[in-house]
């Protein structure tokens, strides 16, 4: 008994000693990456290949969401802070200003490609031919009253046919991500705002009363027609294949991996295909980025090599391994531009963001 007590006390001390050692040996020999869950599947593939090809350790990648990632990234310089943050939206001026204030003076911006957001349904049903106005009218909490400029009403639409006579007469039922998701943000910004802008009085609100404009475009109905299905897009795929009348909002890579179960709806006459998103014809697509702390490039081993791997043609090129994971590559000219930025590590300035 006594022995056990003594042993356990010794063990406690040993572990405390371990803590002290961990603090002392704080130099980090692996790259620490945080950020967007949309970029995560691509960054992880690059990290894995980088780890296997080179003598460096495989980078550690946390999926924290774009906003959370940027907060960690911009909190300071030093091994305790991440070296790279992935982002599914461009850095904002205020975020960059905050970085500058925290001592992160040089941030290099790298665009890696595009991601499409698709509205999909089961293969057992007909392909939907939607436009963004239909999506706005189907999903907004408040919609304009027909013929009465400036007036809003609670969304009265129950079926797609009520919105657009060309659409089938089925109940509006859409599975989509919750408000915490970056996919939801992007969908609201591109599809809902795009649809709302077809009403000229709402479009003018954008300049005159931005708060009200956002309230109209960004508030999604809560009467059961839009069903929050969690952050897991696999769950949405599963639900769609079980309920053929429903639509779902998800990332393009999930459509790409499940073409036997679901199909992407036309939006504004364009179907979400690799080519259409890459050429910029598909309206609901967004660029993906990552941001690099220049101050860390020479202190953390492997940073330059990781950047080189990410921006190599075998990774992000037209036939690179990232495309097999669903990343939609940039046109060659843009790739050359960003490759050059990476080679020269040209930092971002406030003037670049407008």
């Amino acid at each position, binding site marked *: *008994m*006594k022995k056990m*007590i003594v042993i*356990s*006390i010794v*063990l*406690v001390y*040993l*572990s405390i000693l*371990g*803590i002290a*050692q*961990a*603090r002392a*040996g*704080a130099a*980090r020999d*692996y790259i*620490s990456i*945080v950020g967007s*869950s949309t970029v*995560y*599947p691509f*960054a*992880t*593939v690059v*990290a*894995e*290949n980088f*780890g*296997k090809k080179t003598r460096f*350790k*495989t980078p*550690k*990648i*946390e*999926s924290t969401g774009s906003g959370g990632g940027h907060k960690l990234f911009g909190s300071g310089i030093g*091994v*305790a802070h991440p070296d790279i943050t992935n982002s599914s939206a461009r850095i904002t001026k205020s975020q960059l200003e905050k970085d500058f204030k925290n001592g992160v003076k040089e941030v290099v911006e790298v665009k890696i490609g595009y991601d499409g957001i698709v509205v999909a349904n089961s*293969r057992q049903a007909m392909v939907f031919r939607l436009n963004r106005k239909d999506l706005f009218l189907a999903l907004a909490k408040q919609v304009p009253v027909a013929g009465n400029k400036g007036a809003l009403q609670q969304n009265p639409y129950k079926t797609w046919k009520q919105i657009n006579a060309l659409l089938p007469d089925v109940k509006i039922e859409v599975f989509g991500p919750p408000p915490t998701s970056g996919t939801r943000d992007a969908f609201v910004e591109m599809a809902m705002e795009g649809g709302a802008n077809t009403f000229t009085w709402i479009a003018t609100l954008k300049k005159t009363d931005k708060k009200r404009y956002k309230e109209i475009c960004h508030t999604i109905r809560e009467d059961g027609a839009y069903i929050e299905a969690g*952050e*897991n*897009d*696999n769950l949405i795929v599963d639900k769609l294949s079980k309920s053929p009348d429903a639509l779902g909002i998800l*990332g393009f*890579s*999930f459509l*790409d*991996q*499940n*073409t*036997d179960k679901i199909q992407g709806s036309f939006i504004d006459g364009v179907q979400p295909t690799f080519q259409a998103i890459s050429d910029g014809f598909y309206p609901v697509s967004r660029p993906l980025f990552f941001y690099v702390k220049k101050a860390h490039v020479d202190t953390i081993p492997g940073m330059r090599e990781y950047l080189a791997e990410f921006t190599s043609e075998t990774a992000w090129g037209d*036939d690179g*391994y990232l495309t*097999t*994971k*669903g990343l939609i590559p940039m046109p060659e000219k843009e790739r050359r531009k960003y490759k050059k930025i990476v080679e020269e590590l040209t930092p971002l300035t406030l003037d670049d963001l407008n």
Partner: protein
Amino acid sequence: MNNLNKRAVPGNGRTIDIVKKGLNKRYRKERRFRVFGWAAVMISLGFLFLLFISIISNGYTAFQQTMVRLDVYLDTDVIDKDDLAGADYAKLIHEALLSVYPDVTKYNEKRKLYELVSTGAAYRLRDFVAKNRHAIGTTIQIWVPADDDVDMLIKGHIDRKTPQSRRRINDRQLAWVDHLISRGQVKKVFNMTFFTSGDSREPELAGIWGAVCGSFYTLIVTLVLSFPIGGAAAVYLEEFAPKNRWTDIIEVNINNLAAVPSIVYGLLGLAVFLNFFGLPRSVPLVGGLVLTLMTLPTIIIVGRSALKAVSPSIREAGLSIGASKVQLVAHHVLPQALPGMLTGTIIGMAQALGETAPLLMIGMVAFIVDIPAGFTDPSTVLPVQIYLWADSPERAFLEKTSAAIMVLLLFLMIMNATAVFLRRIFEKRQ
């Protein structure tokens, strides 16, 4: 007999009549109660059974992996004997595939052909060459993992009858796979990779060993800290502390802490261990510290009730022969209470093993390929691995998720069985 009584003592007869009248009703009541109890047990067993059925039926295929045999010519032009790591092994794999199908010439078709085997094939070949330097310049036979799509096809998760446009494998690839099968170049083997490697974005290369190691290191830290601290706190509070307002407040707070959602401990860990003490992110050490905070209340509460359950006669006997309080506790009370305290600790550990929420805040929800080798290497844990795989788009991760759940359940069962086993041993000793 009853009739006799009734006749002899009419006064008692009335009571027995009342009892008899109500007897059937009472029996019925008892039967009903038993049926309810039995039904309750059956329902919970039924759900458990359903859970197991769905997990096992989804996941058992993950324990097998489709392999493809390739005849690779280790070209001396490609492999430089002095720089083995620098060679383009992927090219050798591609040439091996092309030598089987020399009629494939178009770029896109070639790409489809290359997609039949995993990108991990090149690394496997590299490791083979590193071990067998003498083989350079000859043709070797090597089994390499098939791509996850091919694996899914062989395991029957891809329906051949669906039109080509809706399949991840096109007709040409289907024909290649069938041809390879007919030549005996495809086989299913036990999936060792799943148990020996770390995470990967390629389902056919992904394994749980990294997560298992992470869980192990994390739980070691938790155990080493929470058992002594929790045990000491329980003994002090139960045996030595005066009963006054302060100890009441402490007791209420411990009970409250046991019910605090675990994410709160994650926030606490982030604020204290990462931001204040400056410990690194995503390491088992911090994970263990956070989980210690989480399991402490459980261990203290269970420990105290185990101490309470020690019979007062033992205490009185000890004190009456002149043992001091410390002697009494150390020699008599604690050994009696130890089985109960150990059970509490193991239940707390099992809880900690299944926890993800607090680890999210301290960065252990991360993609980590390298197997952690110590308490300060970045790592993840089993439930986090399950969560990450469940979120991946590739179909093949579905079965990996279920397989990882099976492994986690196995560990939980082992831990709970250990609790029962330890209790038996200690009980026998007394």
